[in-house]
């Protein structure tokens, strides 16, 4: 078992999930309640990583975040080193790749809240922040939890984007799925089997959590 890869994978999944929630919750709020006509474009863009081959996404990110483009050069100037082949690069790639897994359930959760509830809150003088904190987030908590769990497990099992943007640097960018790929390439099937089993278990446990918690919320 590659403990270093396991630790890096868990760290990547945790950081990606936390940062992605900070971004996905306001975006989902806007997608659920915003009235802009071009909302449909943002909706499509937020869903795109679901259909796009991970290697394509990884390639574009590699180019975009590299020294050949203005945003890439700006990023290098700001953080002092190239984002590609670094942990921050993996986080950016994972956030974009897992975006639909967070945005889709959270937007559905917000949209399912009856507009009369929001009307009542506005009539009683609540501002947008209070409506978000006291009404929307508690009522959409199951959707947010589902989004977080999906994002976490999806990041744990990620391969294409990680390989394209991060390469295979032990301790820096080698995650469990890449370690497993290496093990298969080296004919270390027993180790690959352990890694695969671990990935499978993490995903299954996460899904069990989602369903068990969902049932608990429905009963409450």
């Amino acid at each position, binding site marked *: 078992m590659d403990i270093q890869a396991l630790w890096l994978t868990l760290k990547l999944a945790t950081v990606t999930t936390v940062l992605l929630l900070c971004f996905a919750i306001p975006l989902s709020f806007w997608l659920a309640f915003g009235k802009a006509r071009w909302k449909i474009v943002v909706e499509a863009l937020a869903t795109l990583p679901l259909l796009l081959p991970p290697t394509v996404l990884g390639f574009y990110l590699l180019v975009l975040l590299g020294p050949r483009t203005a945003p890439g050069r700006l990023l290098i100037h700001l953080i002092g080193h190239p984002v590609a082949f670094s942990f921050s690069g993996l986080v950016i790639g994972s956030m974009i790749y897992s975006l639909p897994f967070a945005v889709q359930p959270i937007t559905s959760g917000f949209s399912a809240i*009856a507009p*009369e509830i929001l*009307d009542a809150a506005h*009539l*009683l*003088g609540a501002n947008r922040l209070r409506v978000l904190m*006291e009404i929307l987030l508690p009522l959409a908590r199951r959707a947010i939890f589902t989004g977080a769990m999906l994002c976490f497990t999806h990041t744990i099992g990620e391969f294409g984007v990680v390989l394209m943007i991060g390469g295979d640097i032990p301790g820096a960018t080698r995650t469990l799925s890449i370690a497993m790929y290496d093990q298969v390439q080296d004919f270390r099937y027993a180790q690959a089997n352990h890694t695969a089993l671990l990935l499978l278990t993490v995903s299954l446990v996460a899904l069990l959590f989602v369903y068990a918690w969902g049932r608990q919320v429905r009963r409450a």
Partner: protein
Amino acid sequence: MPDHALLTANIAHRVGALDLHISFSLTSPWTVLFGPSGAGKSTILRILAGLTQPQAGIITLQHRTLLDVEKGILIPAGQRKIGFVTQQPALFPHMTVRRNIAFGLQSLTKEKRDQRITEMLRLFRIEDLAERLPGRLSGGEYQRVALARALAPEPRFLLLDEPFSGLDADMKESILNELTTWLAARSVPTLYVSHDLAEAYQTGGDAIVIEQGRTETQGPVDQVLAPRRERLLRQLGIVSRPTQVPVPGESQTAPKP
């Protein structure tokens, strides 16, 4: 518009098949907005509450302009100090009855807030339900909590959109009596939507009749609704001919043979 008007509204709004062009001025502390289903009553209330923005119009509440589309004035719903209870109100499902009532009292000190909550729980006889979640309430209890929540912040004006339609007659009468006493004591004018003639008569005050998005007549309930009452009584075979009551708009609303 009269100088002593409590609320004046001059609104034009088109939504779907409804083409709303209404103009009225409320001078009575209790006014019934009367009209058939689909006449635009609920839309009018949503516009007054600030939940729907009309395409054109002016709304003034006690000489304060809430809306003037032409001048770009639009006071948001939360700043109008208008209470609004609908036929199917939406309590916050994850909050207890107490927290629902407390929601609009954030600006008060804890002591005053608790005092107001206790007053509301007592007024609507829901003390025993204070720690219950809305999902565990009966229809009547739910409606009473909704009223308590709307009145707790002591609004300057109250809009009621058939809030008692799901209640039995005794409960309705009891709540209505306590509600009107409380509103009168605090001088909170009320616009009460109904399409039920008996209910409109029972509550008294003034009435505004809306037909297909237009203000048809306005005045004291017993005058404005008299032609409809006579027509209903005749249909039921209780009277054989209409009584002679001078009513504005009589020619439009006169009973047909």
